[in-house]
Each structure stands twice: as structure tokens, then as C-alpha cells.
């Protein structure tokens, strides 16, 4: 039986794990290698690491850290942050990163197609950070949510699929860390527009939210806060639903 993937999406900053709210207010939540070991035990479907410091500081990926993560990750994992060249992508694949995640650098027209040519589309994810404007219109943001591309996420996603993106990681900036549910309209629009899998992220606070995302067209649901915080005071605790729970959820 195939069920939708549930993916912890973890933020790295200067070698540590952090969690943000609406892309700001990052809070340290622990050591990434330790987190990977716990997620191994919990038999997590897949992991995504996004390094916020790699982008904003203009540094490339932290290869040493990623090598350590790869040697402990016995599930598929994706990495994004600070990727600008094909050489970096080649190096990431050779370390054992299954999927590379491109955000800001997707505006460089050649990089996505070159990456797909290197290892096939299913190893290339384009992450789209979208925000709804004052009049309800969605727009794509890059550079960690700071630069507005003034482009509709639907046409952007279609364009990325054409260039060779094998998966879209669709993030609703204003839902990040809020834990009140995904932006279902955004998920529906983008999922209908592309034939590649859409991974919804931003807003998950309960198992019910995962089901809603999938019902609106997502092939997988990702979350941050839900897997690193526990209780109303948001104590740091790494959790992940049991397989039987997830099976029941999607039945």
C-alpha cells in the first residue's frame, strides 16, 4: 500500500537546527546529527534540510556537515541552501544527498535543467516560497522570503516543471511555524497545474492537516514545528507519527 509521504523539513543555521515563524524569529532546537538519529529510529519517510545561513551569508553548502548527515541518514534526504553551481550539486549527490533543493538559484535559467540532466528530474526539487498579497494575489519570493519576484506561483511552477524540476516544495511563508493548517488554496492551484509531485509545507499543526493537504492535491506533506515542538509551551521534542497512524489517516 502506497501512502503519501510525511516529511520533516528541518532548518539549519550555522550548523545547528532552528525553527522559524513566518521565516523569522528563529529558535535553536538542537543538533542536526542527533535529530537524524532520532528520525532513523522513528523510520521517517524522508527528510529535507534547508540551510538558511548558507543562503543569506552568501556561503555555499556546509559540505562537512552534510557529509555527516548523509552518513547517518538511512532514509532519502534532500538539501537546499546556498546552491548556485552544478559543481556543488555534483558534490552533494556524491556525498549521498538524494535530492537537491533549489530556491533562489532557480531564477538562473540553466541551473535546474543542468541539474536534471546530471541525475534525472526525480533528484531535483524546486522550492517555491509563496505569499499572498494584500488583494489575495499570490507571488513567489526568493532570498529567504525577502525578494518578491512578482510572479504567480502557478506559472512559476509550470515553468520549473518544464525546465526539469521533478518535484515542487511549496511553502506558504505566512503559514510557516503557525501550526494552524496549510494554505489549501495554494496547494490546490499548484498541484492542478503541474504533473510532478507537490510537497506542501507551512502550517501543519496536526495529523488532520496532512490529510487536508493531500486531499487538495499534494503528493506529500512536510512540516517543521510539528516534529520538533511538543505541547502548548513548545518544548523541544522530536516526534513523528507511527506508520499505523499514518496508514489510518490516509485510508
Amino acid at each position, binding site marked *: 500500500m502506497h*501512502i503519501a509521504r510525511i516529511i520533516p523539513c528541518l532548518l539549519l543555521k550555522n550548523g545547528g537546527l532552528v525553527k522559524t515563524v513566518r521565516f523569522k524569529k528563529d529558535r535553536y532546537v538542537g543538533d542536526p546529527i542527533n535529530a537524524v538519529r532520532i528520525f532513523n529510529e522513528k523510520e521517517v519517510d524522508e527528510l529535507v534540510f534547508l540551510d538558511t545561513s548558507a543562503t543569506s551569508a552568501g556561503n555555499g553548502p556546509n559540505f562537512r556537515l552534510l557529509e555527516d548527515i548523509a552518513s547517518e541518514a*538511512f532514509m532519502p534526504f534532500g538539501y537546499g541552501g546556498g546552491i548556485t553551481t552544478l559543481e556543488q550539486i555534483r558534490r552533494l549527490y556524491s*556525498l549521498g544527498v*538524494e535530492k537537491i533543493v533549489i530556491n533562489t538559484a532557480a531564477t538562473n535559467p540553466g541551473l535546474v535543467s543542468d541539474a536534471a540532466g546530471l*541525475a*534525472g528530474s526525480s533528484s531535483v526539487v524546486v522550492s517555491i516560497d509563496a505569499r499572498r498579497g494584500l488583494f489575495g494575489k499570490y507571488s513567489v519570493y526568493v532570498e529567504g522570503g525577502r525578494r518578491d519576484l512578482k510572479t504567480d506561483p502557478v506559472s512559476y511552477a509550470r515553468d520549473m516543471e518544464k525546465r526539469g524540476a521533478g518535484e515542487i516544495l511549496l511553502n506558504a511563508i505566512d503559514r510557516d511555524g503557525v501550526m494552524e493548517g496549510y494554505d489549501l488554496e495554494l496547494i490546490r492551484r499548484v498541484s492542478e497545474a503541474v504533473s510532478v*509531485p507537490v510537497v506542501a509545507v507551512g502550517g501543519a499543526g496536526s495529523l488532520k492537516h496532512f490529510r487536508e493537504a493531500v486531499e487538495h492535491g499534494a503528493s506529500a506533506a512536510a512540516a517543521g514545528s510539528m516534529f520538533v515542538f511538543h505541547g502548548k509551551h513548545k518544548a523541544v521534542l522530536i516526534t513523528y507519527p507511527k506508520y499505523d497512524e499514518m496508514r489510518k489517516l490516509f485510508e
Partner: protein
Amino acid sequence: MIAVVSYGVCNLGSMLNMLRKINVEACEASTPAAIEKAEKIVLPGIGAFDNGIKALNALGLAEPLRDRVVNGKVPILGVCLGMQLLGTGSEEGVQAGLGLIQGGCVKLRPPEGVGVKIPHMGWNTVHPKKAGPLLEKLDAPRFYFVHSYHLLCKDPTDVLATAHYGMDFTVMVQRGNIYGAQFHPEKSHRYGMTLLGNFAGV
């Protein structure tokens, strides 16, 4: 010692990491000489069928692989594209495969209206069709898949296991010393560890 075939169409990091984790000795094999003395072979691979077979041929590995497996009776495990390459060809391309398993690859075509996206990406349960060493000690196994094509065996007794994604299809084969897995055991937690450990023990 398992020789993991290195031919440029996928990176071996994950496979070597996983084998190290379960204390199985492994090395990269990228030359005919390395294949000729291999005691056990893993053929990984991702991407397009023709790219894979051309890359094997460009390094002169296809013939030694066939010889080692057919005449030397060395166990081989094809993984993902590596399993597809064991067959005779694929709809995805025009090149001939290794021909170690009779049958070619076809695109996954679930019936219309079942609403599943291709590629088949994610975790799925695997259902054994016959007894074989690879699936020993595995209770209700599930594995991580990423693929759009699947192998169609001419001889149904070669089918070791199937999965369901809009339709039933072959995900594992075994014919004597020749094994294939469409999924990624190296990325499938304890299920993959057990399977690779079983292969190391055959």
C-alpha cells in the same frame, strides 16, 4: 566483499554508507578487472535506461558483468535502474539491456481514473510471490521507490515480489544468482538493512 559498480550514472554514497552501517565490506568497481574478480555485485543506478547501459558499455563493464554472473555464478543485485538494466531493453530507450532476466521495461500505466501521479515516489509495501533468501526475516516490508518504468518478466517464476500503485507490478526479481529490486534498499531503514544483509549472506 561486495563490488558496487561505479559507472557514473549515480553516486554510490548512500549504498556504501548503508553497507558500512550493517558491517558489510564493500568497494567501488569501475573497471573490467574489478568486475572479473568480484565475489558479489551490486549494480545501482538512477536516470534513463539508455544512459545507464551506454555508461556500462563505455567503461567496458557490460560484458565482464554478464560473464561473471552467467559463467562465474556470482550473485548480482540490481537496484532501481540497475534492476531494469538486468532485462532485455526498455520502452524508455532503444538500447539492449544486459539480458540477464528475460523481459523488458515498460512505463507504469495505472488505469485512468485511479488518480496516481507518475513517477511512483515514496514508500510502498512489497508482497512476496515466492520464497527467496532476500526477503527472509522481513515481516510486512516496505521500501522507498522512485521510478516511472517497471520490468515485465517473460517468465513469471522470475518474479520475487510485487507492489501496488494504481496497478500491480513487479518490484523484485530472482532467477538463480540474479536478483533485482526496483526500490532503494539503501534508503529504506531497517527493511533495507535486512535485505542488503540477506544479499550479503547469499
